C-alpha cells in the first residue's frame, strides 16, 4: 500500500498542466491548456498567465509494475514468470513529459494571441516478447528458428518556443501556431532489425543485424560492454539551453459552432529537429556468427588468447561509428471532435485522436459528457478506448475562484485505485491566473 501511494504521489506531482494526448482536456476547450491541443481554442478570459508546470504521460502495453514486482507477504520480489506471462507480441513503454516555464494568452476581440516556452522529453522503448523470453527462458526453445529481438528506443528532449494566433470569424474559429524547437539531446534507432539464430546442431549463434542508432549529446559506444549513456534531463543548464540543434514545427486547428453542434479539429506537431552537435551514428549491418572458441591452434600446440572470445563477443555486432547530422521528425497528432449541446451547461461529445508514433501509433476514441455546476465548477467525464485498452474512465474538474483557475484531469481515473497495475495513466493538474472574463 505504501508503495502504491508513493507511485500515485509521484504520478500526481509529476503530472502538470499541459498535455498532448488527453481526451478529457480536449473536451474542456475553454480551459487555457486546451489551446495546446487545438490553437483555435480560445479561453474564456482575455488574459491568462500560466505559471511553470509539468505534464506526464506513461503508457505501457506489456507487463505493468504490479505484474513484475510482487509481494510474498514478507518482502517484495521480482516475478519473472509473471512478467513473461504478461508480454505482448510487441511490448512498449512510453513516457512523455513536458515542463512549461511560462505561458501567456491574450484575447482582443476576435483575435487571440499566445506565447509560451516548454521543455519536452520523450522516452520510448519497444521490444518483442522474444527478447525477455530469450533472456530468462533461454534460446533452446528457439533452436533452428530465427528470432527477431530487435528493439526500438527513443530518448528525445527539446526546448520549444511557441507563438500562436487565432481568429474568430462568425461561428468559425481558426488558429495556427509556429514553434521554434531547440534540440537538447537525442538517442534513437533509425533501423532496429536484429535476428538471432541458434543452430540446432552445434548451437552456433548467428546474428543478422540492420541497426542504426542516431545520437546527439547522449551516447558514446565503444563495444557492447563499453557504453556510456549521458542523457541527464534532470540537469538543464540555461547557459547551454540554446544549442545548434534547430527545428520548427506547426500546429493548426479550427472550431465550428453550428448552434447545437460544435465541430473541432486540429493537427499538431508538424515539424522536425535537426541534430548537429556531438552527433554519433552507430551502424551495424550484416551477419555475424559465433561458433565457439577456436581451439584448432591449441590442438596443434599453439596458444589461444582467451581474451579473444571476449573481444569477439563484445564486437559481435561490429558497430561502425560516423558523425552525420540527422533530422528527427516529430510525431504529429490529430484531434477530431463533435459536441452536441444538450443545454446551456451540458454537452455530449465524441472525439477521435490519432498520433503517428512509430511503431506504436495511438488511436483513441472517446465519448464524453460535460457539465457546468454554477459559475465555479466545470466537470467532464469520458470513456476512452485507447488502442487495445478499454478500461479508461476519465474525469476532469476545473474551478474558477475569481482570477485563480484550478483544474484536475485524467483520462484514466481507475488508475488512481491501482497505480501499480496501470498501463495508461496521465494526469493534468495545476492553476492559471485568468482575468477579464469575456462576455457571452
Amino acid at each position, binding site marked *: 500500500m505504501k508503495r502504491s501511494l508513493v507511485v500515485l504521489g509521484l504520478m500526481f506531482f509529476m503530472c502538470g498542466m499541459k498535455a498532448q494526448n488527453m481526451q478529457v482536456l480536449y473536451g474542456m476547450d475553454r480551459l487555457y491548456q486546451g489551446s495546446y491541443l487545438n490553437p483555435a481554442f480560445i479561453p474564456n478570459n482575455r488574459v491568462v498567465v500560466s505559471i511553470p508546470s509539468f505534464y506526464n504521460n506513461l503508457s505501457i502495453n506489456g507487463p505493468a509494475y504490479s505484474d513484475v514486482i510482487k509481494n510474498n507477504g514478507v518482502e517484495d520480489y521480482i516475478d*519473472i514468470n509473471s512478467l513473461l506471462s504478461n508480454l505482448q507480441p510487441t511490448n512498449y513503454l512510453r513516457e512523455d513529459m513536458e515542463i512549461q516555464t511560462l505561458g501567456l494568452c491574450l484575447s482582443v476581440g476576435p483575435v487571440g494571441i499566445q506565447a509560451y516556452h516548454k521543455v519536452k522529453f520523450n522516452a520510448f522503448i519497444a521490444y518483442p516478447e522474444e527478447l525477455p523470453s530469450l533472456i530468462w527462458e533461454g534460446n533452446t526453445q528457439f533452436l533452428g528458428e530465427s528470432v527477431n529481438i530487435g528493439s526500438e528506443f527513443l530518448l528525445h528532449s527539446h526546448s520549444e518556443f511557441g507563438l500562436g494566433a487565432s481568429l474568430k470569424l462568425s461561428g468559425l474559429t481558426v488558429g495556427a501556431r509556429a514553434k521554434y524547437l531547440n534540440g537538447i539531446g537525442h538517442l534513437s534507432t533509425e533501423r532496429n532489425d536484429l535476428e538471432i539464430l541458434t543452430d540446432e546442431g552445434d548451437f552456433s549463434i548467428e546474428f543478422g543485424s540492420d541497426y542504426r542508432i542516431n545520437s546527439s549529446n547522449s551516447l558514446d559506444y565503444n563495444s557492447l560492454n563499453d557504453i556510456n549513456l549521458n542523457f541527464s534531463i534532470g540537469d538543464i543548464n540555461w547557459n547551454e539551453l540554446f544549442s545548434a540543434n534547430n527545428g520548427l514545427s506547426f500546429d493548426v486547428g479550427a472550431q465550428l459552432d453550428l448552434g447545437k453542434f460544435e465541430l473541432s479539429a486540429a493537427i499538431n506537431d508538424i515539424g522536425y529537429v535537426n541534430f548537429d552537435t556531438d552527433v554519433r551514428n552507430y551502424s551495424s549491418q550484416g551477419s555475424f556468427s559465433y561458433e565457439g572458441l577456436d581451439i584448432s591452434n591449441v590442438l596443434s600446440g599453439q596458444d589461444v588468447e582467451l581474451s579473444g572470445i571476449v573481444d569477439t563477443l563484445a564486437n559481435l555486432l561490429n558497430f561502425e561509428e560516423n558523425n552525420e547530422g540527422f533530422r528527427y521528425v516529430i510525431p504529429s497528432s490529430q484531434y477530431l471532435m463533435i459536441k452536441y449541446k444538450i443545454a446551456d451547461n451540458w454537452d455530449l461529445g465524441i472525439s477521435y485522436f490519432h498520433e503517428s508514433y512509430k511503431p506504436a501509433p495511438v488511436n483513441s476514441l472517446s465519448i464524453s459528457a460535460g457539465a457546468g455546476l454554477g459559475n465555479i465548477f466545470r466537470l467532464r467525464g469520458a470513456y476512452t478506448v485507447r488502442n487495445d485498452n478499454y478500461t479508461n474512465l476519465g474525469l476532469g474538474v476545473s474551478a474558477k475562484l475569481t482570477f485563480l483557475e484550478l483544474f484536475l484531469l485524467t483520462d484514466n481515473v481507475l488508475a488512481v485505485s491501482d497505480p501499480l497495475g496501470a498501463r495508461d495513466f496521465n494526469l493534468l493538474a495545476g492553476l492559471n491566473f485568468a482575468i477579464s472574463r469575456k462576455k457571452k
Partner: protein
Amino acid sequence: MVIRYKFVPVLFLLSFTLFVVGCIDGDGLNDLSVEKPIGEYAIPLVKASINMEDLVQEFDEYTEFDTDSDGVILFKYSGDILKRTSNDIFNSIESSLNGIPIPIDSNNFPIPFTTPDGMEIYLMEVSEGKIGYFFEVEVDEPCDVKILFPQLFDENMESFVQEYTLSPNGEGKITFLGEINLEGKTLIADQDGQVNLQYELTTASGEELLFDDFFIIINDLKFSYSEGVFYNQEHVGELDTIEIEVFENWKGGEIFFENPNITLTVNNSFGVPTRSVVQVFDIHTVDGQVIPLEGEAIVNGIDFDYPTMDEVGVVKSTTFEFNKDNSNVQDVLGSKPLFVEYLVDAITNPEGNDDVVGFIWEESEYSVNVEVELPIHGKVIDFLVVDTFELDMSVLTEQNIEEAMLRLNYETGLPIGFELQLTMLDDSDLELGDVFQLEPLTIQPVDVDSNGEALTSERFQNDILLDTDQIEKLAISKKLILMVRFNSTMNDELSVKVRPEQFLDLSLGMIIKR
C-alpha cells in the same frame, strides 16, 4: 543558472525501471530477490578444424614430421649429430711427432714417418712448423757443412738443401744450432716410405767427417693435408639418447608400427676406410626394460663410404636403415620405447690392409646422425595416455547451473579414434568421479579398406548429460585427470595408415539449465 527538476529523473527512473525489469537480469534491482523460470541456454563452446599435417607439425619440440615414400605420416626423432673433424685426427698425429728429439747417427738418416698410433705417412703438406737441429764435431780446421732433406720440397718442388762453412771455436769444436721452416713445404716419402736427413761434412783439407752429435726436434707441426696408410685405429664416439615423445604420457595399451626404422647416416670427407663399431644401441621402454637393437650390421659394423684420392673435398654419404628385415627394430619400437640410447665408435682401415692409401685434409670431417622413424601405419590398441592439469570451475556455482548437456559434433577422416574421460580431483587430490559418467567423450575412427586406407569421412553427434551431482563436483574440482584412449579401426586386426590430409572438424556446444 541551473534548475534541478528533482522529480524528473525520478520519473524517468521509474519508467525505465519497468523496462529494465522487463529485459535485464534481476540482479539490477539489488534489494529484491528474483523468482524466475529455469532457462535453457544453448551455447557454442569450442570448435576446431585441423588436419593431421597441422597437428603433427606442432606435436612437440623433439618430434619432426615427414611423410614416407607412400605418403604416410611418420614421426622422426633425431639424436645429436656426432662430428669428428681433421683436427681430431691431425692433433693425434702432430702430437706424436712434436717435441721429440731424434738423434741423427749417420749422414743418411731415415726419419721415422709413422705415428705411434698407427699412421704411415707418405705425403704431408705442412701448414706450419719447424725442425730445429744441432750438430757438433771436434775439428781443427774450417769445414763445409751441407744439410739435405731430399724428401722435403718447397713450393717449387725443389728439395731442401742448406750449406754452411764453419770454423772451429777455441776449444777446437764446431757447434751449430739451426732451424728449418716447414711452412708451405711438402714431405714426400721415398719408395721405401721414408724421409731421409742427409748431411755432408768436409774439412778444408778435403777430409769427409761425421758429426760427433747431431739431433733434430720437430716443433709446432701442423698439417694441411696428409696421405698415407691409416692403420687400424678406433675413434671413440659419444653416448647419446633420442627421446620418443609419443610414449611420454603412456599408461597402457599398444602401438604396433608396421614399418619403423632406425637410420644411421654418416657423412664423411676423410679419404680413409672406416667402419662403425656399435658399442651401445639400446631401447629403453616405458616399463623399464632395456632391449638391445640386434642385427647383422650391429655385429659386423657398417662400412662408411669415403672419397678416393682424387676426390679430396668430396663428402660421401652412407645411410644404413635398421628395418624389420635386417634387425629386431619392429619389436623394440613396438615395445613402447621411451628413449633410444646409443654409442657408435668408428674404426679406420678395419681390415688392416696396408695397401689402402688414404688421406686427410684440413677440412675433412665425418658426422654420424641417428634417426628413429615411426611411420603411422600400424595398429593402435587401447593406447592410453594420461595427463593431469589444474582448473578452477567455481564459476559453475556462481552461475547456478543445475543441469548441462554437452553436444559434440564432429566430422573425421581419421582411422584412429579416441575416448576421452576426465576424472575430477578435489584440493586433497581425492577422486570425485568421472565427468562423463555413462560413457566417455568419443571420437570414432572411420572405416578403412583392406590396405588400411581410410575411406570417406563420417559425421557423428554425441550428447552427454551432466547432472546436478556432476556439476556440483565439477564446481569444487581443483584438478582434472585427462585420460585419452586411442584405438585404430579394427584395432588388432588391421594396420591403418595416417596421412597428412586426414582431418578432424569438431564443435562442442552445451545446453545449460539455470
